[in-house]
């Protein structure tokens, strides 16, 4: 039996000119509002013992989703089937009464999770102990620092033996020591067969902790599935938004530059750049594995006036956030281009035998240059778009060869 099933789950926020309009709407059955769907048609499930991560930009609907799961908000549409007790730690101060002391909030928090007086009494000491709040437990929580808040909230929600635990990024407020402690407790939960829904901006965390992940974008589930793949796709999306002014990549992955009028006035021009042996993903974008072979063929044309040595090709691999990952040219490597049928038809295949790039979305920048590298005959920006996927969870741009050995 699934711990949690969401069917067509949706939540709308309604904007009214004035509050009274909402009441009029109820009475006169006439629409007075503008709608904003914070969450649309979300379908997913979570099994016992499974950790599901939720990622997405700000305003993507993560908080709305978690509030629905936690039961502090009702869905406007669809259905949420919950098997067991849900316990949630949402944004700071969730469920706490600011004027109450920490201890009063412990009692109240447990009571709201359905415990009776004796059950609470039996747990209070353990909760205070885990929160490490000491004497501060007798202070009103409004005087707490955000770290203290989270420690107390986490201690309460995890002490009531929930079947489903919903954790917002609030947890990242705690210090390293407490983060470790809370992670350990969450992992114990997982091992006990409880379901965890986990939301974080720390994608590494999500990738490491979660088996499955959901990427929300503009209120809709963009992708869900195996967490590594979901996070990689989300990362591609994030880098795209953070790019350092790169021209928008052209959609066709394997492209050809048409021979136009302008090209004839150049003394040399690029005619074609093609990714070789590329697998295509569902969206038709070339897909490589980290460690696999990467090949691109570049063709160019020169005029008679130019010698073969005068024309060189440079290739820069750029990630979609604008980071130049690696760039090299035939000038630098002391290579010459190859001629084809005609002496003026040039070409070369650029090969990386073991592509060390990690997951990401990349494109090429190809330059046709002279021996000084200073004069540019022609260039192609953001062409040959491709994707790389890595098997493991290393972080960074590229996989660097390395080894670990005993200390000296």
């Amino acid at each position, binding site marked *: 039996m699934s711990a949690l099933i969401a069917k067509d789950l949706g939540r709308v*926020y*309604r904007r009214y000119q004035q*509050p*009274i309009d*909402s*009441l009029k709407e*109820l009475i006169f059955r006439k629409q007075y509002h503008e709608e904003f769907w914070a969450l649309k048609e979300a379908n997913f499930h979570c099994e016992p013992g499974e950790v599901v991560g939720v990622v997405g930009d700000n305003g993507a609907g993560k908080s709305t989703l978690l509030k629905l799961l*936690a*039961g*502090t*908000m*009702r869905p406007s549409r669809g259905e949420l089937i919950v098997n067991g007790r849900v316990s949630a730690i*949402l*944004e700071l*101060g*969730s*469920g*706490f*009464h*600011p*004027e*109450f002391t920490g201890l*009063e909030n412990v*009692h*109240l928090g447990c*009571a*709201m*999770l*359905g*415990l*009776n*007086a004796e059950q*609470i009494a039996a747990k209070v000491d353990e909760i205070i102990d885990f929160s490490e709040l000491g004497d501060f437990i007798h202070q009103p929580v409004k005087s707490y620092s955000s770290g203290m808040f989270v420690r107390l909230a986490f201690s309460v929600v995890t002490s009531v033996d929930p079947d489903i635990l919903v954790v917002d990024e609030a947890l990242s407020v705690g210090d390293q020591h407490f983060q470790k402690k809370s992670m350990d407790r969450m992992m114990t939960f997982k091992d006990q067969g409880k379901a965890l829904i986990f939301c974080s901006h720390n994608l590494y965390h999500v990738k490491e902790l979660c088996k499955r992940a959901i990427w929300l974008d503009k209120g809709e589930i963009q992708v869900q599935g195996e967490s590594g793949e979901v996070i990689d796709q989300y990362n591609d999306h994030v880098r795209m938004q953070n790019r350092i002014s790169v021209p928008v990549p052209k959609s066709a992955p394997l492209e050809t530059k048409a021979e136009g009028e302008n090209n004839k006035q150049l003394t040399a021009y690029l005619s074609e750049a093609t990714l070789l042996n590329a697998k295509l993903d569902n969206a038709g974008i070339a897909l490589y594995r980290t460690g696999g072979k990467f090949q691109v063929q570049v063709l160019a044309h020169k005029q008679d006036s130019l010698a073969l040595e005068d024309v060189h090709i440079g290739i820069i691999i750029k990630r979609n956030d604008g980071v130049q990952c690696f760039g090299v040219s035939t000038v630098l490597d002391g290579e010459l281009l190859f001629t084809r049928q005609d002496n003026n038809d040039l070409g070369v295949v650029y090969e990386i035998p073991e592509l060390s790039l990690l997951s990401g979305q990349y494109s090429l920048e190809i330059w046709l240059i002279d021996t000084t590298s200073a004069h540019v005959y022609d260039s192609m920006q953001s062409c040959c778009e491709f994707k790389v996927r890595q098997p493991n969870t290393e972080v960074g741009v590229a996989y660097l060869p390395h080894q670990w050995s005993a200390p000296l």
Partner: protein
Amino acid sequence: MNSINDDLSYMHALRLLIKRELSSRYKGTIMGVFWLFLQPLIMVIVYSFVFSVIMKVRIPGMDNSYHFALYLMAAMMPFVAFQDALTAASNSLFVNSALLHKSTLPPLLLPLVPMLATLVTEGISLLIIIVAAFFLLDQVSWYLLLLPGLVLIRLCLSIALGNVLAILSVFIQDLRQALGLLLTMLLFLTPVFYPVSMIPEPFLPWNNLNPLFHLLDAYRALILRAELPGVEVLYVAIFSLVMLWISVFFFRKTIERAKEFI
């Protein structure tokens, strides 16, 4: 929609909230819990002094000089509880927005907590009046045992109106401002400061429509006249229960909408 049964599983939370509601009033004070007694006690003393010693107000049929003060208090105290309940209810959703949005507590409990807390203050006030009536007027009777019934009716009526007010205050911001004025008007239009016999004939039918009049008069009957209240109080009880049922329905129907504005 939660059923009443689901809400009952929050009994312990409700107890904690009420305890907290009461203790917050005197927390940090030197007199502590005595404030709960001190407030009604001082009111009784001041009213007695002003109306009986200084103004010497007499109402036909009352010989004892303290009679008017107690006559006034016996109706005034339940009214104050009613007034406190409504005022607190109309603020309850705003004051508790944190619990409303960030906890799974049934929203219906939020106005309920301060309204239930008025039971304690009303109870203490009535106790003081009963004791005063015994010592000053030599008045005590078995009918006093019916008093909890009246308190219960008063509470039902308060909750019925309170639930509706809590919601309407969200949609109509002016209501919170106007409420104090409306309650003062109600206090003066209900025979609390004056006996019903002073109301001019043409206005009597209107007065009879006021459930508070019948209810407050029943308090006086039990405490001061040692007699059974009129049958009208039963009508008030039924009216309150029906209103209570409607108000819970209304509250549940509208709370999700109201939450959007808090």
